[in-house]
């Protein structure tokens, strides 16, 4: 009886093995397709950034023609600096507001804090496009559309709800006893925040920094609307390249490459923290 059962199990085991192999192969194929779809644009940018217009039309040969045209038509250095200033200022505001607010929502109980948190988080649902014109009118009224300040404030306002949500979630994962231990050890809540909460939330801070950096650096709309021509970001500057009668694809690709590099570098530096920050605070 045992022998016949063992014999019957053999074809079943083989079928299962075959099914496992097919599943793995299908998964691998899907991943390769996804990787090609994701990486091809990068390859396209790199390949065509190093061509002149004629080489691009013929799709043969490489040169620095595109780069020369880019630097001739666009103040690349200045616009990279503009992007950096806007990014750094906006992220600084986002971090100051989100860490303090997140800590307060997570660790300091007060009447109505749940409702306030809900209101802050509900701002996540508001799309940028719907508030663009009202914001432009508001900021024009207070003369903030002729400098970095307008764009910085808009970016900070757009990024703060998500950052606050992330920080509050992260701080909730930190044991209350740890905060209470610091309070008993002689720190007030302010110093507990600075000495204990901030060092412990570095992964979450890194996550907010990376996500906001990528979002603000790559954003076009706010840069075009709220910044004067001489303070445009690199993304907004690149957009103007394609607004002429003829568009030089190689110079556009060269600009895109320059524009993408800082975001990639920031991502690679903080990648480890990014994953940790997104998963920590969600429980054990």
């Amino acid at each position, binding site marked *: 009886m045992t022998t016949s059962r063992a014999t019957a199990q053999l074809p079943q085991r083989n079928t299962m093995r075959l099914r496992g192999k097919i599943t793995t192969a299908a998964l691998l194929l899907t991943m390769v397709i996804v990787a090609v779809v994701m990486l091809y644009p990068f390859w396209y940018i790199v390949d065509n950034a190093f061509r002149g217009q004629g080489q691009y039309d013929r799709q043969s040969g490489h040169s620095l023609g595109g780069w020369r045209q880019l630097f001739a038509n666009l103040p690349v250095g200045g616009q990279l600096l503009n992007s950096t200033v806007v990014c750094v200022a906006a992220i600084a505001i986002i971090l100051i507001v989100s860490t303090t607010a997140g800590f307060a929502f997570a660790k300091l109980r007060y009447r109505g804090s749940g409702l306030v948190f809900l209101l802050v988080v509900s701002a996540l649902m508001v799309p940028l496009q719907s508030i663009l014109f009202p914001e432009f009118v508001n900021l024009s009224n207070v003369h903030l559309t002729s400098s970095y300040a307008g764009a910085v404030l808009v970016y900070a306002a757009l990024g703060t709800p998500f950052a606050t949500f992330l920080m509050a979630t992260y701080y909730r994962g930190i044991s209350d*006893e740890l905060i*209470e231990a610091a309070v*008993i*050890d*002689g720190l*007030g809540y302010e110093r507990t925040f600075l000495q204990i909460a901030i060092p412990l939330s570095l992964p979450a801070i890194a996550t907010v920094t990376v996500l906001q950096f990528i979002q603000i650096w790559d954003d076009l709309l706010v840069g075009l609307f709220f910044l004067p021509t001489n303070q445009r970001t690199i993304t907004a500057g690149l957009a103007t390249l394609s607004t002429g009668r003829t568009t030089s694809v190689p110079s556009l690709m060269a600009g895109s490459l320059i524009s993408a590099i800082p975001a990639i570098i920031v991502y690679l530096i903080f990648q480890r923290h990014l994953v940790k920050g997104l998963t920590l605070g969600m429980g054990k």
Partner: protein
Amino acid sequence: MARIELDAVTKQFPDGTTAVRALDLAVGDGELLVLVGPSGCGKTTALRMIAGLEEVTSGTISIDGRPVNDLEPRHRDIAMVFQSYALYPHLSVYDNMAFSLKYRGGVSKAQIRQRVADAARILELEPYLERKPRQLSGGQRQRVAMGRAIVRQPRAFLMDEPLSNLDAKLRVQMRAEIAQLQRSLGTTTIYVTHDQIEAMTLGSRVAVISGGVLQQVASPQELYRRPANLFVAGFIGSPPMNLIDARLERAGEAADGAPVAAFGPHRLRVPQEVIREHPALEQHVGGDIVLGIRPEHLHDAALIPAGTSWPVIELPIRLREELGSEVHLHAAIGSAAHVSEDGSADDVRSLATIVAKADPRTKIAEGETAAIAVDASEVQFFDRATGASIRR
């Protein structure tokens, strides 16, 4: 060192839950007082109020005679050891221990180094000072938490179940270490635990709390031998005290006119010396009471010393448990078990059985009806209506 007093301290949470009701407690200078009770009884809330982590709804908490209700935790000069140890994970062992001294100020760097070194030596933490908490074992982390409290040289230690995250063996070892440390430092300590063995072995006095109400404060021996009420009687001791609903009757058969406690088919004569010790019992004759008999006061009648005149009852044995140094005999009493006020009754009691902690030489086997001698002088009596012990 400090004297801590709680005067009618009550804590009511915003949702209406009353965690602590009119708690009166005085902890002497240098004393180790243990707060013990089941989960949710309010013992940790009481400790947190003393620490200043919870506001007091009414009543007064005083340290050395000075009310501290409105004083911030950092100004109370007390140290707390938490259940989770609450070590700062980003700091080394040294920095964890020195943390409070650094931020409180008034202590030089050299003094901080000296104090941390002293505490590390006492707690055998010297090899681990540069490590982060995550690189330590549970016992070592517990020691660091103790060290962090010690270096401050506070007026009092508050300990909230500091051993509950350790395994059983380490818990016993650390329990002894904490007791020794407290005695050598002589710092006033309030220790919260739900473990009655921890409470009995550590505390010079033990305060039993249930439902936010203080049930009894006494020495471990006093708690065990003279529980103030049914809750303390059932909570302290393992296996717990056998609590049996009975009726106190004036029986004609007793030559000395002593009353008899009747339960099921059994009648237990209450000796005159017991009546003398519990004079209030006379007022309960003809009424319902609860008998409390510790398992070690029930003996195999065949093994009791010659000359003892303990009353004997015949009980069917349902279960025999071998524990090596003793044998637990579960016997049916043939009447309803006592059900506590909150309606709970553990398995043994709900099955109307009692447990006898018998001599390991006993030959009594499962299924047989055995003669069990009751050391009547140790029997406790409780008012069934109020649950209070009947004494004077």
